[in-house]
């Protein structure tokens, strides 16, 4: 090797060392920058990032309270909570919902109806954080999913309390049901300012007692600080404030009596309300056909919903509360009271019934239900045999406004104020009402139809029972209520509902006595409900009624056999028992039942037999036509 090359090489080495030193300085400088960055993040900004990390890690989760339990007067549980596992999807955290559900279907059983219900829930509540795709998973399904859970981010198993109605269809129209909170409910809660109470809750009362006592039943949510991972899964609870359970309800309802009453209707449609006259407590609240409220709890599937909704018997219709029917002849005892109290009739006043009634200058004649009439009829007999002609004359003498104001005291034409929402007020007409409603003046002929509970008259089965209870109670009015007391979930303290009489209808005892005696004779031989009253072993008062569904033309004869079932008259019956010291008053309606005496009165008899004697009927109340009635 030459010398030049060597010196070149040595200058190469020097240059290399120089360059390497520069690289070393660059390395040191770069690491210093990194250290500066670490210092900035970990010391200067540490608090900020510490908070960020905590925010990441900890979330406050509301804990839904347990809903109050509902039981009847004898402690029979009507609504309770059952723990069950649900499989829930958080729509916001799942990109491909369909794909996820398909994947889940391979792990747990998911039926088409589950998918449909999920879709419906999704539509109803866009903002919901988590919606169930399957409810009430079996233990095996829970285990199967748990093993596969990592494949399904945004899907979780949750232990939820489910509302359960152990009595199934019994008393469902009184109880109502709870359902999932939808967007409309949220808006309403927001407007009420109670939305905060519903943090963590997914259900609320939708119908019936569940709805009207929502505030008592719901309770207040608790809160838990929960550590979550990046997938949003809760890992452990750091601290918690327990929720306050909703208050329990004890009803005035007697479940056994309710069952007897529901069964008494057989396959008929109708309603029955039984009230304890001395308190206003509702003993039975029947609207048949009924439905199973359990179907609604998790969000009803569209198939079941369609079946219920399109059933021609309208099982979702609460006939007792919202069905307004002409009271027919059950109106007569109250008309009789009006005649006596307002001095238009004395007990001895007697008419000769020719079988029809006319007004001067009016060609139309109002017929009695009995062709040829009942002969000599006084007030007592007019009730016992349900003479129409007697009341045509009485109504004409009283005038519509007197009827309106007097009979109105028995609750006709206004809401009773029962503690179930959605009550219909019925209709008790007056001159003013007709003018306001139709801009027409009142005709004397309008009053004639009103007198026998027809025409514009409309009453709910609840109103019939209420009016009967007032009469049975000699005019002392107790507001009907179905909740006996509210039991505080924490203290166990019981708050009674409506224990005091709200008002008194001023009635003269001897007139009450007179009308009541006549009503007792209705159920005895010669009365329109004689068959239903036969061999009772106790005395009870009642009044049959029939409400026309299809108006009859002048001169036409009503022939029950020729009329299609849906066009047959509604059968009505009001009654109270025992006659001397009434413990129960009922209003009964049997849709298209025909005659009150044959179709409705036997139901009252079965209800009384059970309530007073503990006697269980061996078959539904007889419906074969036997008695003569109005």
């Amino acid at each position: 090797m030459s010398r030049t090359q060597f010196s070149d090489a040595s200058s190469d080495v020097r240059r290399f060392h120089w360059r390497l030193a520069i690289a070393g300085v660059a390395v040191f400088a770069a690491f210093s920058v990194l250290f500066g960055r670490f210092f900035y993040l970990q010391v200067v900004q540490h608090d900020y990032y510490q908070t960020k990390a905590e925010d990441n890690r900890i979330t406050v989760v509301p804990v839904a309270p347990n809903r109050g339990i509902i039981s009847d007067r004898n402690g029979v549980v009507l609504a309770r909570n059952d723990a069950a596992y649900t499989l829930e999807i958080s729509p916001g955290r799942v990109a491909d919902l369909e794909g996820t559900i398909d994947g889940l279907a391979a792990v747990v059983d998911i039926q088409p109806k589950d998918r449909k219900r999920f879709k419906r829930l999704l539509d109803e509540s866009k903002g919901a954080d988590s919606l169930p795709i399957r409810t009430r998973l079996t233990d095996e399904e829970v285990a199967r999913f748990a093993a596969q859970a990592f494949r399904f981010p945004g899907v979780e198993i949750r232990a939820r309390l489910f509302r359960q109605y152990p009595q199934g269809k019994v008393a469902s129209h009184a109880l109502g049901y709870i359902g999932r909170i939808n967007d409309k409910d949220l808006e309403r809660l927001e407007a009420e300012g109670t939305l905060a109470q519903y943090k963590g809750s997914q259900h609320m009362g939708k119908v019936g007692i569940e709805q009207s006592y929502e505030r008592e039943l719901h309770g207040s949510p608790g809160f838990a600080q929960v550590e979550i991972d990046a997938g949003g899964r809760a890992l452990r609870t750091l601290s918690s404030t327990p929720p306050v359970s909703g208050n329990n309800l004890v009803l005035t309802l007697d479940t056994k009596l309710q069952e007897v009453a529901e069964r008494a209707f057989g396959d008929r449609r109708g309603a029955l309300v039984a009230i304890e006259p001395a308190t206003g407590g509702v003993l039975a609240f029947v609207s048949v056909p009924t439905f199973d409220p359990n179907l609604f709890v998790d969000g009803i599937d569209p198939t079941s919903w369609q079946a219920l909704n399109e059933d021609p018997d309208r099982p979702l219709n609460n006939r007792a509360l919202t069905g307004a029917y002409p009271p027919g002849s059950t109106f007569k005892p109250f008309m009789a009271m009006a005649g006596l109290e307002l001095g238009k009739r004395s007990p001895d006043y007697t008419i000769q019934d020719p079988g029809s009634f006319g007004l001067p200058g009016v060609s139309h004649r109002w017929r009695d239900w009995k062709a040829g009439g009942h002969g000599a009829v006084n007030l007592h007999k007019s009730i016992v045999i349900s003479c129409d002609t007697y009341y045509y004359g009485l109504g004409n003498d009283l005038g519509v406004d007197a009827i309106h104001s007097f009979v109105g005291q028995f609750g006709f034409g206004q809401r009773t104020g029962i503690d179930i929402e959605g009550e219909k007020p019925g209709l008790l007409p007056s001159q003013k009402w007709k003018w306001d409603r139709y801009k027409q003046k009142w005709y004397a002929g309008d009053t004639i139809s009103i007198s026998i509970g027809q025409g514009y008259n409309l009453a709910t089965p609840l109103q019939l029972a209420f009016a009967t209870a007032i009469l049975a109670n000699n005019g002392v009015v107790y507001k009907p209520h179905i909740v006996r007391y509210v039991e505080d979930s924490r203290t166990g303290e019981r708050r009674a509902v409506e224990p005091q009489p709200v008002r008194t209808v001023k009635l003269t005892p001897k007139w009450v006595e007179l009308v009541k005696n006549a009503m007792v004779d209705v159920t005895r031989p010669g009365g329109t409900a004689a068959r239903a009253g036969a061999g009772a072993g106790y005395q009870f008062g009642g009044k049959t009624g029939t409400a026309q569904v299809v108006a009859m033309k002048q001169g036409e004869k009503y022939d029950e056999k020729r009329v299609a079932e849906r066009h047959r008259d509604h059968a009505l019956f009001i009654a109270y028992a025992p006659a001397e010291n009434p413990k129960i008053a009922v209003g009964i309606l049997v849709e298209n039942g025909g005659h009150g005496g044959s179709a409705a009165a036997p139901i009252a008899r079965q209800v009384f037999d059970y309530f007073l004697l503990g006697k269980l009927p061996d078959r539904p109340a007889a419906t074969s036509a036997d008695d003569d009635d109005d």
Partner: protein
Amino acid sequence: MQGAIDVFGALRAIGHRFVANIDGPLFSIALVILSIGLATLFSASSGFPGRVTGQVINIAVALTVMWLMAQIPPQTLMRFAVPVYLLGVILLVGVALFGEIVNGARRWLHIGVTRIQPSEIMKIAMPLMLAWFFQRREGFVSWREWIAAALILAVPVLLIAKQPDLGTAVLVAAAGFYVIFLAGLSWKIMIGLAILGGVSLPVLWSMLHDYQRRRVLTLLDPTTDPLGAGYHIIQSTIAVGSGGLTGKGWLEGTQTHLEFIPERTTDFIFAVYSEEFGLLGNATLLVLYLLLIWRGMVIAANAPTLFSRLLAGAIVMTFFTYAFVNMGMVSGILPVVGVPLPLISYGGTALVTLFTGIGILMSIHQHRKLVPT
């Protein structure tokens, strides 16, 4: 007695032969960093059982490779420089033509039963080739040589960038650049190139892939896409920042164990380390890397030939680049490019590459006196 002593002596001699080429300081520092890496991996992999044992196997393989490389004298290596480089370029062309697409990038090439990532070969082949190139032209480096060197550098880098694999392209380009820099590229040219680069930035920008642009943009402001592209940076920055001065403690990192840190066993493992060991831990790791680099630079400075000097210097600087880019990206001052944290991130390929480099350094150091210039 005598026989036994002989046996021990023989064993000692064999042992001595076995470790003769292993550089003590370099190996010790690497082992310390590896241990820190395994501890961090254990914490980070709570959800991935088997990652730690997998990494132990990777380390075993990588140490074997290191030992083998340490036995190969630099002259022998030099003979392989051109073939390995050419093979690498051919494979990269093969990737461009027949490569398998994984995650939107064409990086893998199927060869018989296995598949390889030829860009990884280039991390060693590039400095090897350039060092060989300058050694061949020792003392006479004119502008023609610089252009030739630039071409040797540019062809594979562009092929890799095209895949696209920005992280590896940056590392390979850096490795090549370090050789050229250490070979004495004039400052004028470097400054000229820097100006040219600044001017051509907009052009480069237009050549970037959408996801690469997004990465750069979210680096500038990660909050614009907190659940998408910015998520990595935001969560790793939170992890680093919440670690504080002393860290949350081993196995106690909430960002780590609640799975807020993505890719926490591989590219983002530094976030785990940083969260659990804090600023003190970070400083320790920086010092360890500095020691490793220092030892490598000492070896480079004492290397007997231009080839071995350049090769050793470039390898050391590549280590630095790995560490700096990774830590810079996790702490949010560099864009997210797929660069692992040397000796700590999970993954066999990177470990083998790194220990190949360490093995070469050891070989260079061991053979420094045996070969006169």
